[in-house]
């Protein structure tokens, strides 16, 4: 079994990679991809903690992971719908070119 700290460092690395991507990317779809990475880092942490928890407490972490996955799917669906609607109106999906609240 891998020690818990290695798993946590791995998910911390995923988290900072995701944050970097979310800040640096210009493409809105790219930002969404980075946010998926961040969510995954959190979800992985929950399952890792649950594996090392006492008996009876283990389900909580796994269920948290499942809920995070569901929420991530929901976020992706709405986010991509917004991206498509935005592209239809503005003909661009670069985040720094969309500088007006309403057009």
């Amino acid at each position: 079994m891998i020690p818990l700290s290695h798993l946590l460092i791995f998910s911390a690395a995923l988290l900072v990679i995701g944050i970097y991507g979310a800040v640096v990317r210009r493409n809105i779809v790219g930002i969404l991809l980075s946010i998926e990475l961040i969510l995954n880092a959190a979800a992985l942490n929950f399952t890792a903690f649950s594996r090392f928890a006492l008996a009876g407490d283990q389900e909580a972490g796994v269920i948290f992971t499942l809920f995070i996955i569901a929420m991530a799917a929901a976020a992706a669906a709405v986010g991509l719908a917004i991206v498509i609607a935005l592209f239809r109106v503005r003909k661009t999906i670069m985040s720094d070119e969309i500088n007006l609240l309403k057009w």
Partner: protein
Amino acid sequence: MLPLTLLVKAGLYLIMAISLLAAVASVSLPNIFHAALALALALLGIAGIYLGLQAEFVAVVQVLIYVGAVITLVIFAIMLTNRMADRSTPAKNSLGAACLAVAAGLFSILVRFIRSTPWPETTSAPAPGTSEIGQALMGPYVFAFEVISVILIAVLIGAMVIAKKDNPGEDAP
């Protein structure tokens, strides 16, 4: 059986390395389509780590929802929005160096915290099976489960309303 456990461990570390590389690729590749594929690889790697943690159900759900649905949706959106020939626009804004520094700082702080905390060394109980997860979902966590299903329905309707084409009668650009 010792060589086998070593083999499994080495495999897990290999998966970790691959998914980290794929994650880096997914935030740094200029071509957004390649970035999405790299993210798919990273997510598959995370599913492999779930398998290593004996959470088969989560691993399968990860593959089913992320790789099967979310990445497909993302690629769908890329195909609908990005022009295939357009490769000249820069993929990143000017915050690169500063953000890299902040991210590295955050990472070092996190690693220091993680290393200085005493974690449990060994697993104390067998991993919960699928039926235990199901019973927990229908028992103590049933309210959260209901809320999630309501949210998912709201998302379903919301995504449809947002992405729907406007009426042709309204001001067409």
